[in-house]
């Protein structure tokens, strides 16, 4: 399994965000996307997830363009955006159960356990703290597993204890033959990660 992107160009509202961007990601690798605010980290991840169409360039999964075979790529990745995608009136368990049913049914209680959510699993998400919501959202990675994790700011609002827990989950995933593409502000000091720096990838006609 491999993900490759070549010559990607991103234009948002007539502004060139990045140009000529390429990377490749193989099994067992973590690619850390880094850059200033507005450098296009989120845009790049949304492009990989297929929510944003690149103005130029292409993204390939196992050598096949995802544009040509969107269904083949659909179940291969899990995208976690910086928004939590949780409903405040449902409990953490109900939220996870819905997403697990929606994107492949798997063990929700195991996911709750992995992210240390068992105690608060049956309280509504509306009364949870930002960090608890984040963990509930991240638990989807376990309840609906996929080889490629595409994570936008996965550790924002987590305390150091849970950042370590997340890192252990990430390393376990990668060691088990997964791969991850993540964008964070802070360096997570992951031994197996490579860096993709978005600063300096702007085109020459950039303002």
């Amino acid at each position: 399994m491999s993900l490759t992107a070549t010559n990607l160009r991103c234009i948002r509202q007539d502004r060139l965000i990045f140009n000529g961007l390429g990377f490749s990601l193989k099994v067992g690798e973590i690619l850390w996307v880094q850059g200033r605010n507005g450098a296009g980290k989120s845009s790049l991840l949304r492009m990989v997830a297929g929510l944003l169409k690149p103005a130029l360039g292409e993204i390939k999964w196992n050598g096949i363009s995802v544009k040509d075979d969107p269904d083949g790529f659909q179940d291969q990745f899990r995208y976690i955006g910086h928004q939590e995608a949780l409903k405040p009136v449902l409990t953490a368990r109900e939220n996870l159960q819905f997403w697990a049913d929606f994107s492949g049914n798997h063990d929700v209680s195991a996911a709750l356990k992995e992210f240390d959510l068992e105690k608060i699993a049956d309280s509504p998400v509306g009364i949870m703290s930002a960090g608890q919501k984040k963990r509930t959202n991240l638990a989807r990675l376990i309840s609906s597993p996929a080889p490629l994790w595409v994570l936008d700011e996965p550790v924002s609002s987590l305390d150091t204890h849970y950042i370590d827990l997340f890192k252990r989950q990430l390393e376990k995933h990668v060691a088990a033959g997964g791969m991850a593409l993540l964008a964070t502000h802070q360096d997570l000091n992951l031994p197996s990660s490579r860096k993709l720096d978005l600063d300096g990838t702007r085109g020459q006609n950039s303002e």
Partner: protein
Amino acid sequence: MNKFANLVLRDIRLAVRQGSAFTMTLSFFVVAVTLYPLGVGPELNILARIGPGVLWVGALLSCLLTLDRIFQADFEDGSLDQLMLGSLPVELMALAKIIAHWLTSVVPLILITPILAVSLNMPADGIWAMMLALLVGSPVLSLIGAVGAGLTVGMRRGGVLLSLLVLPLYIPVLIFGVAAVEAAIAVLPMGPHILLLAGFSLGALVVCPVAAAAALRLAVE
């Protein structure tokens, strides 16, 4: 299919837990319709004459109140991204949300219509015709509304624009909906009107989920 039903059930469950969706549209409908007898005066002939029109317009406006919520809440909390990424085609995803909207926001209006119709001095034949016409024609409200909701989902204060986009498209349903009820009251055949309404509904059922899905794809970019 399972995912489709799951999404419909989840939206219904959200509407029930939040509660406000039911009560808001229902009370708006009741208040808006009761204003007419107060404004027009208690003359029974006039009320019976304008009754079908008042009920239909009331239903259209009440439906508008909840249209923007079809996709807005999911857009704001990031759920829409995830729904678009699932293996359920975006068209079916949109259709599931439309069905949930119809069940939670429009069906309650149909159910309360007989009581309001009585208050407008509508004869019994007219009441049955009213409910039948609403049942057959009202899916159009949710279907066309969802296209407007998809187009305005990324906008702040998109509500007014949504009304401007959607209300003109409701006109055919309003015309034939009222005509069906008036025909029934005048003891004329109302079949043709009901069939036309059914035609609108079926046509919208084919076109609108596709259009709403296209609008959503633009919105998440």
